[in-house]
């Protein structure tokens, strides 16, 4: 399998990057800080531990994903190693898919590492790990998968610096999905159209932010499992869309 071979190589290269380890260490450090807030009331310290832990996973995951994925394709072009790869019986779509899978595997390893530390901290402080906490880590993982696909898509035509700002910018806009959703019902026609386009066409990263229900377990939502499944499906399909677009552009790019 060509894409898997490319993915394996990509993981090896990515793990050699020191900057990724720095983000990982920062993330783990932030999560480990949680029990420091034990001086608060039990309910408050639980809130802070959970919110800070989930935020640390997301923040470190965000930077790891972007920093890892923005270089995956441009570096191959810059070093001209892509000629060696493409001169072999490797299709361009296999190359893009391989890079994505490699980047995604790196993200998975990092989020899994931070997730384990986070769940251990919860176990340490609360005596048990509520089942919902796994869902929080799990959804962050799919959120980062979508971000990885977006970054790979941009990396087929943009420089790493430009890619960083575009991915980061769209991540912020996508996180404001509750705002963009309210714009879809705006009384101003132009705002309504713009809001609808943004809300339904741009990737909605805010969909995956279920931290609130995890931090406040008394908050009830209808069919949480269906909601999670819908979000996973959304991440998978949207990632597929971005990868197809990446293939279309990369196919036409002269390298």
């Amino acid at each position, binding site marked *: 399998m060509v894409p898997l071979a490319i993915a394996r190589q990509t993981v090896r290269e990515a793990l050699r990057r020191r900057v990724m380890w720095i983000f990982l260490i920062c993330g783990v450090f932030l999560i480990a800080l949680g029990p420091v807030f034990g001086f608060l009331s039990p309910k408050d310290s639980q809130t802070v531990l959970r919110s800070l832990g*989930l935020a640390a996973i997301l923040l470190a995951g965000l930077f790891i994903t972007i920093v890892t994925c923005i270089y995956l394709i441009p570096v191959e072009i810059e070093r001209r190693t892509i000629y060696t790869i493409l001169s072999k019986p490797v299709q361009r779509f296999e190359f893009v898919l391989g890079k994505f899978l490699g980047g995604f595997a790196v993200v998975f390893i990092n989020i899994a590492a931070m997730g384990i530390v986070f769940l251990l901290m919860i176990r340490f402080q609360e005596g048990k790990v509520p089942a919902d906490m796994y869902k929080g880590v799990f959804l962050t993982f799919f959120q980062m998968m979508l971000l990885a696909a977006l970054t790979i898509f941009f990396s087929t035509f943009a420089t790493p610096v430009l890619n960083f700002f575009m991915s980061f910018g769209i991540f912020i806009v996508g996180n404001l999905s*509750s705002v963009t959703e309210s714009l879809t019902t705006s009384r101003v026609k132009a705002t309504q159209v713009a809001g609808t386009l943004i809300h*339904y066409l741009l990737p*909605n990263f805010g969909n995956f932010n279920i931290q609130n229900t995890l931090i406040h377990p008394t908050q009830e939502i209808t069919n949480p499992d269906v909601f999670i499944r819908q979000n996973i499906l*959304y991440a998978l*399909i949207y990632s597929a869309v971005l990868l*197809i677009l990446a293939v279309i552009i990369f196919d036409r790019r002269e390298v």
Partner: protein
Amino acid sequence: MQKAVKKMPASVNRRTAPMAVAVVALLGVTALLQKAIDPTARQIHMGEKNISQVSGGLNNEFMLLPLLGFREAAAGLLWVRCDEFFHSGDYDAILPLVRIITLLDPHAENVYVTGAWHLSYNFTDANERSDRRYIAPSEALLDEGIANNPEIPDIKFEKGWQNFDKIKNYTEAEKALQDCIAGPHHDETGVKGTDDYPFAAPLKTLHLLAHTYEKQARLPEALEEWQKALARTEKIMADDKAAGRQQNYANKQMWFAEKHNYAEDLQRYHNRYTTTGHDAINPSNPPLPGVLWPTGPGISPQPWDVALRPAIDVKRPKVLRVYGRFNTADGSRIDCRITDWFYKDRPLVDIKNSFQVNMAETILVDSCAVRKGKFDREMDMSKDPKMYSFSVPTYKIVLSYNPRTTSPHLTDRFGWSGEGMTDSDLTHVYLDNREPLLGTALIAGQGATGPIWDGVTVPWANHSQPVRMVKVTYKVSRKQIMGEAPITAKDIVPND
């Protein structure tokens, strides 16, 4: 020079069209999925405010967090800052943070509860009297919290508690506590039926509701509430026993306390309102003055004349001495309330961005203890110009005695609704006839003939007594408050 035309390989061109179609089709699917996701996402983000609304009070380090989707983390860290401010006594810094936190994370119930408590109780003058202007924003904050968290009983309980303890609006307290017990997804007894949250509201809600009924002179309902509480505690104890768990002595103590309160209510009811009271059964134990026994032996069926005779001196500008006579037992308290003449108790407040109050308004609530039939208290408002600005021309000073808010040993003398008291100066007697304030209906079959009201026996069927208060209202000018003119009996106006 001719520009080179880039030509794509045929295989690329062949692939592009189906891939483009696939992209459009899949984007359509994601749009449909997004439409399906939106209602649940709306539930999760209910009450969250646009970041631009909260950014005004956020430092730079906190601004980025909500933008990246870390609203709860930002709220949690701000709450840590609040805790520091609480411990350092920097109360002024807390309110803006509470506002921002609740906008960032509208499901942080602890912040609503603590913020409202802080608003209602912790802003005080030099003599530790609360700044009552903050009651309205406190109530508004609790209402906002309840709207954002209809599932959570804590905020509703806090609203009930504040109305019971601080505001003494028992009608509102009852509503909030009923709402708390009712809670969504429960049966009519407040049982939710899940292992983690078996009841819609904690047991203390039932206790407070029972006390609220007592304060409203609605004894049958109070007794019923104690019975419900006893039944719940007994069930918890029985479940423990059935599961082979060790007896929980806290539950046992709770059961004793509930039983005691139930018995006490029952005894007071019979003592105060029926012929079966133990004082009536035992004629050698004469009733206390003022108590109305329907058929008690050897008592004059006349209400007790409490004879409230107040006077007010202005010692210095904004320093009033309130003194006088009040013919009751020690432990009574005369409530004193000084406000702008047109002061509204529950003004509409806008807490969208902050908890600002109208600093031009003046309200003081205090009370004077009665000892040996006299009361005397100095009310110094000169040290707190921000709280007592006295910036309007006319003020209302109300001195009153409310049998519903007094302690039980005094209610024993005058009944829950003040049936047993009057004032020989009838202009001081004030009946609050508002429907929600009407007192108890009697327990079926335990009513005897009915209490005596101004010498006339009121049949039990009609016994839904309004509150009978003793009240004196003064209308005074700013000049008088400033000591430029005396406050005399001529300033007394009819009670409203």
